[in-house]
Every structure is written in structure tokens, then in C-alpha cells.
């Protein structure tokens, strides 16, 4: 057994250090099946003290590592290429819920939906709701600055994290708090959220809890033309309505969902459906509902159906939330994209995506957070078909070029990880990428935390990392 692994067994217990190749297989993936990398071993601390001790032991051994929450990420961000993986999934304790101050302090492995469940007795919930919320962890959400359908109104993870206790890769423990209005200081917490595990390991996180809305109204609008749906999205936003969620599901996705066990009753004879949810105090909600319906009709909606009760609402959401998985029925693999474009450019971008798909003979299913302009063009494919995969990757690159060309970005909520790294220099100048490297270096000068992710190493001006870290990321000495 690995000597380091033996040392860490002393901290977490031997049953929580996984070293055998056969048992490391499942840790080779996150939620994006296209990438596989085998960690050196997995160590799973059970609490804050163990997590800190593990990171310090790794620092003492000068060993690079990757922290992983629930392994549901979609950017190959938590893969460990022959280096140590710290599994935070055992750290599932909710330390406290403050119903008056509306905050909760949790360990990083606490699952997003379980936090909302724990807050439910107080009429509160944790607002950021990635589609994987039943399985993804708060720690992973913080690392990725995760979004979700309801982030349109309520904001992304960044807007809901108030404090984090972080063990830096060198073992130093620091407290990061949201900046105060009356105090000078850097927004280190803001920089930490979304740092994809490259800045350190959060061992506890304090988040804001949001009161449940008094009323919710969920609508499904059917659009015979995709263009009309896209236009309705920008019209709703421009009208000053802030829906709780505004999601677009296209025909390809509808076909996959309706063929699955999660059939939500979406019409299969239209080019797109918009799922629109408005919520808030009872007062004014009817006005918003009426306005949304009117705008949808003006943009060519054939019908706008309103969920009659909570189970109906659940069912409508089911079709959206299970869409990714439902595509598993279409083909064995799925390439998931996460680009964002300005909302007024949705219609032309969707048209271009359709053309690109046709040209490369790939199938693109669009299901996305339209209200934010956050596209998810998903391409079901067969990873074993080299010709098809070449076409898929060519199509992806062109889609990214279109989105960047329209003033957009390459990832809205999934993170860069390994998957989006090839596009980073399409989006940022070498100077900007170097600035990102310097930001990272302030947290992790030795670059031992999740090395080789997010910013391609070649853009980092200074590279004073230890030889082992260099080796881990495959950099030339």
C-alpha cells in the first residue's frame, strides 16, 4: 500500500482510504462520462478536523490533490490524474440552521436538496437549484458557483454563500466572509466561490436560506416555432418581469423526455416549449401571470397551460429536470454544453446551432435556462464511434465559436474543468489568463489543488511549482 495512503488511514480510518485499482474505477468519472482519469487513491475524511488533517498531511508530503463532492459535475473538474482524491461525500453534517437570521452552516458534503429539506420546517429553502440538486453537494456547488433554473430570480451560488472556512492547500486555515459594507478588504470569498477546487478545500460553508414564496404559478407554453419561443424569452425579460424560472425545451429534448418514464405531457408536435414560473407574494402575481401568457401568445405560442396544483407543477418540472438523463435513452453518451449568450441573441444562435448540427450530422437537443441566456446544447452520441465523435467535437467547437462571437461565454454554471479548457483562449487574452493564474497562486502558490484545471498551464507566466505538481499536470520541467 501507498505510504501516503497508510499515513492518511491513520487520520480517517483504513476503510475510508480506497487504494485498489478495481475500487477506484467509479472515481474515475464525474457526471460527464466522456472523461476518465484514475486517482492515485481516494481518501474520505468524515469531519472538519479530519479534512484539515488530511490536507495538512498532503501539504507535508507535497502531494497534489483534487477535492470531490458528489461527483455530479459536468466539466470533468473533479477528476484526479494519478494524484490523490479527497472525497468530501462523508462530510454531511448540517451544523446549524438559524431560522431568524435565515442562514445554515453545513459541511461541504451536504447534499443540496437535503439542506432544503432540513430548512423546510421553517418555511425556508436553499435557492440555487442545479438540476442535480438531489445528489450534488454544497461543497461542489461552491466550487463550481452552481446555478439552476431558479437562479434567474434568486441568483447563483455566489449570491447565497455568506462564509466559508477554508483549508488552503498549504494547510493554513482561513475564514472567508462576504465583504461587509463598512469594512475594507478583498472579496476573497467571492473569488473562492467558483474556483473549481483550485484554491483550497472548504470545510464548512454558511449559506443564506430563502423564504418559500407565498405563491407559485408554473406555465407551459407551446411554440410551433423555436424562433417564437426564443423571442418570447427576451420579451418577457425586457418587460421587466423577473420570472422565478424561464426554461426552454426543444423538440429533440421533448421527444427524449416523453419517451422516458418521466413523460411530463409536453406536446411532441411543437418546436419548443417554454416552462415559465412566477412566484412571490400573492399580490401582483396574477398580473405577472397574465403578462407572461400575453407575451407568449404574441410571440406565437399555440397554447399556454397553467399547472393546476403542486403535483401538476411537479410533473411539468420533472420533464425539465430529468431531461439530461432522459437523453441516455437516445444514445449511450452525451456531450453537454453550457454556453451563455446575450438574451436578445437567443433566436439567431439557436438557428445557427441547428445549421451546425445539420452540417455535422449530429443531433442537438436544447434544454436550457433561457431567461439567463444559458444554453445547454446536448449532443447524444456513441462515444465508441470515432467518426461520430469527431463530428460531435467539431460541432461543439463551432457552437462555442458562435456563442463567443455573439458576445457570450463558454460556461454559465458547469465550470471549465478539463472539458472547456480548450475554449479558454478563445474567450480570454493571454494577459487575462495570466491574471487568473496569479489569483490562483495567491491561494495555492504551489499549485497542488486540482492542478491542470480551468486555466491552461501554458498561460501562467510564473511557474514555480514543485516538481511533483509539475509532474501531476504534465508540464515540462
Amino acid at each position, binding site marked *: 500500500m501507498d505510504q501516503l495512503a497508510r499515513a492518511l488511514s491513520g487520520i480517517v480510518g483504513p476503510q475510508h482510504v480506497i487504494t485498489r485499482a478495481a475500487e477506484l474505477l467509479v472515481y474515475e468519472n464525474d457526471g460527464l462520462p466522456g472523461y476518465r482519469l484514475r486517482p492515485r487513491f481516494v481518501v474520505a475524511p468524515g469531519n472538519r478536523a479530519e479534512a484539515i488533517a488530511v490536507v495538512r498531511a498532503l501539504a507535508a508530503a507535497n502531494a497534489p490533490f483534487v477535492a470531490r463532492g458528489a461527483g455530479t459535475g459536468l466539466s470533468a473538474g473533479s477528476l484526479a490524474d494519478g494524484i490523490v482524491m479527497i472525497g468530501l461525500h462523508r462530510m454531511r453534517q448540517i451544523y446549524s440552521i438559524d431560522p431568524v437570521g435565515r442562514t445554515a452552516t453545513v459541511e461541504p458534503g451536504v447534499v443540496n436538496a437535503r439542506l432544503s429539506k432540513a430548512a423546510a420546517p421553517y418555511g425556508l429553502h436553499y435557492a440555487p437549484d442545479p438540476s442535480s440538486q438531489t445528489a450534488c453537494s454544497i461543497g461542489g456547488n461552491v466550487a463550481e458557483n452552481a446555478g439552476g433554473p431558479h437562479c434567474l430570480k434568486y441568483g447563483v451560488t455566489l449570491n447565497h454563500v455568506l462564509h466559508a472556512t477554508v483549508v488552503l492547500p498549504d494547510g493554513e486555515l482561513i475564514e472567508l466572509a462576504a465583504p461587509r459594507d463598512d469594512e*475594507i478588504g478583498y472579496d476573497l470569498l*467571492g473569488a473562492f466561490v*467558483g474556483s473549481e477546487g483550485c484554491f483550497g478545500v472548504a470545510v464548512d460553508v454558511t449559506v443564506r436560506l430563502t423564504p418559500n414564496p407565498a405563491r407559485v404559478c408554473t406555465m407551459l407554453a407551446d411554440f410551433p416555432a423555436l424562433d417564437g419561443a426564443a423571442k418570447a424569452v427576451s420579451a418577457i425579460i425586457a418587460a421587466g418581469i423577473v420570472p422565478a424560472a424561464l426554461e426552454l425545451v426543444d423538440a429533440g429534448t421533448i421527444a427524449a423526455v416523453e419517451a422516458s418514464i418521466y413523460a411530463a405531457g409536453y406536446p411532441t408536435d411543437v418546436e419548443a416549449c417554454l416552462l415559465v414560473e412566477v412566484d412571490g407574494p400573492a399580490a401582483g402575481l396574477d398580473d405577472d401571470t397574465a403578462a407572461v401568457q400575453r407575451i407568449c401568445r404574441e410571440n406565437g405560442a399555440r397554447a399556454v397551460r397553467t399547472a393546476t396544483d403542486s403535483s401538476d407543477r411537479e410533473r411539468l418540472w420533472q420533464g425539465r429536470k430529468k431531461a439530461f438523463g432522459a437523453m441516455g435513452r437516445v444514445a449511450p453518451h452525451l456531450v453537454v454544453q453550457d454556453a*451563455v*449568450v446575450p438574451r436578445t441573441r437567443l433566436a439567431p444562435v439557436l438557428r445557427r446551432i441547428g445549421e451546425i448540427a445539420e452540417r455535422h450530422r449530429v443531433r442537438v437537443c436544447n434544454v436550457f435556462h433561457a431567461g439567463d441566456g444559458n444554453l445547454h446544447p446536448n449532443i447524444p452520441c456513441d462515444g465508441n464511434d470515432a467518426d461520430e465523435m469527431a463530428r460531435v467535437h467539431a460541432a461543439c467547437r463551432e457552437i462555442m465559436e458562435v456563442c463567443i462571437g455573439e458576445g457570450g461565454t463558454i460556461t*454559465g454554471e458547469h465550470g471549465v474543468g478539463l472539458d*472547456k479548457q480548450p475554449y479558454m483562449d478563445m474567450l480570454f487574452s493571454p494577459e487575462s489568463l495570466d*491574471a487568473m493564474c496569479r*489569483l490562483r497562486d495567491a491561494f495555492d502558490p504551489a499549485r497542488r489543488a486540482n492542478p491542470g484545471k480551468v486555466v491552461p498551464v501554458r498561460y501562467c507566466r510564473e511557474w514555480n511549482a514543485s516538481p511533483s505538481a509539475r509532474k501531476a499536470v504534465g508540464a515540462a520541467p
Partner: protein
Amino acid sequence: MTDAHGPAAAHEPAGTPDLADVVRAARAEGRGLKVVGAGKWSGEGTPAARVRDGADQVTLRRLSGIVAYVPGDLTLTARAGTTLAELDDATRAHGQWCPLCPWGTDDGTIGATFATATTGPFGAALGRPRDLALGIEFVDGEGAVARGGGRVVKNVAGFDLVRLMVGAFGTLGIITEVTVRLRAIPAADVTVLIVPAGGGVRGASPPAGAKWPPAAGSSSIERDAAVADALIAAEVAPSGCAVLDQHDARLLGVPAGAVVARYMGSTALVRAGVAEAGRLGTVTETDGRFWTSYRARDPHPRMLRGSPLSISVARRLKGRFDPGSVLNPGILGEDAE
């Protein structure tokens, strides 16, 4: 403090490349730069007043103007020297606004607002600078021009240089351009005075969940604070709420003991909010311009409290973004010893 390089110079670069030249020159010559927008938050007692004597002054007023604005996207990109008033004029024409509304006056610049992360009375409800900034361009302490974020409302590409720069008081980079999130101007925007119902306060029925009534024997300001808490806990919460001491009340022409609240949203929502406020006291509608004078009465710069460089990460950041201590030297209290 003595300055080895003679009298301080003043720079007014017209563009980002010019600014980068100024920074590079200062770095080469070992001079400090005091970065100024409109100079609105640089008075006595502000962090800006701590900038080391002898630093050259860089004023960003020529680095102004709106770079991109697509109303349908509800985003706008402006250069740092653009004033808040200019921002407001441009957006208002399209029925939109940027809810920054920081403490101070609207002749302050957008760059300074983000550099100092100065929030205002609506920050908690409508977003603070860190919540409203989508993208940023800056010049670091060695004259390199970098960008973070972008022009879309959701973006996790790369490490977050936007949050890094917002509130860093120009010590890690000089903000040259910002993309902000806008909102549609709501259908209804009502400001009300709430005079808590004297002895009858106890009988008032407060919104559910509020700490009410205030403790017996509490002072007028404590009682007002309790009213504000109750308003914020209500189902329809105000976008902003002001509790004034007697001096401020007199200055702003508000009856003593009144709490001022602003409700924004659809007509029905605002009506409901005002009705809820009515359960706490006597409500009268007042002029919305109150907020302009309220914000202006005190520039509320972020305090000198906190010593950022005591944190290892912050020290390393400073070392990597401004190794020559060119940018706003002294502002973080590094000379306080």
C-alpha cells in the same frame, strides 16, 4: 513622508492603453499612483485619504462613456469614468436603471463605485456592487490589461477576477471598464413615511415573523429600528428602508420618528406592501427624491476597519498583482505602523 522623485504629477489618460503606459512608467520609476474617479470618496477619513503622499494622481474622468448597451439584454458596459448620472440617463431612456445607488451623489463614477464596492440603501434588496458586476477590465500594477467575466448575466468561465477587483480599492488593478446588470424600471415606485402609532404601537398588527412589538421603554430610534425590521420581514418587503436620527430627520425634512420605506414592483405588489406598512403606523406617501438627499447626506465610504493585508492570501494577491506597490500605496493601511 518624503518623496524621492520630486513633486507629484497628474495623469489623465484617454484610454486603457494610455493608462497602462502610465502604470508601466510608474512601476519602472518606482512611483506610486493615486487613482481617482471623480474624487467623491476621497475626503478626510476615507481610505483614499490614506494614499501615500507623493503618489502621482491618475484621474479617470476622460476614460468615460458607454461602450455597449443592448436594452433587451438588460446589460450595459461603460468605462470607469462614466458618472452614475450618465448611466442613469442612458438607461432611463429605455425604461431601465442600474440599482447601484451608492451613498454619495450621482456625479460619482461607476469605476469608483465598483472599486470601493460602495453600496447604498437598496443594496440588500436589489444587489450590491459584487452582485451587479458582470464583467470587468482592469490594468494591473505592472501595466498588463486583463478582463474577467463578460457581458452575459451568468458566467463561470475562469477564476473570478470580477469579484477580486470589486472592492479592492484599486490596489490590485485599476478598473477601466465595467459591465453591469440592469433592471426594468418597475411599474410602481412609491416612497412612504411611516410614523409608528405612538402609544398605539402595541395594538398594531405586525407582519408575521417580525419581532414586534418593540421592547417597553425603548427609545425612538430603537422603536424605529423595530419598525424597519418588521417591514423587512413582511411578505412584501421594501426595496429600501431608512431609520433616521433626529439630526438627519431635520436635515432631510422628515418628521421626527418617521421611518422611510421604498416599495417597487407591480402596482398590486406595491399596494400590498404599503398596506402592510400601514399596520405598523400612519403611512403617508412622500417624494421619492428623498433618497437622493438621503444618499448624499453622508458619503458613507467603507471604513478603515479591517486590515486586509493581515491575511496571507491578500498579501500574496497584492504581491502578484502589484508587486511594486504602485497602485494606491498606503490605502490598505500598510503604512499604519
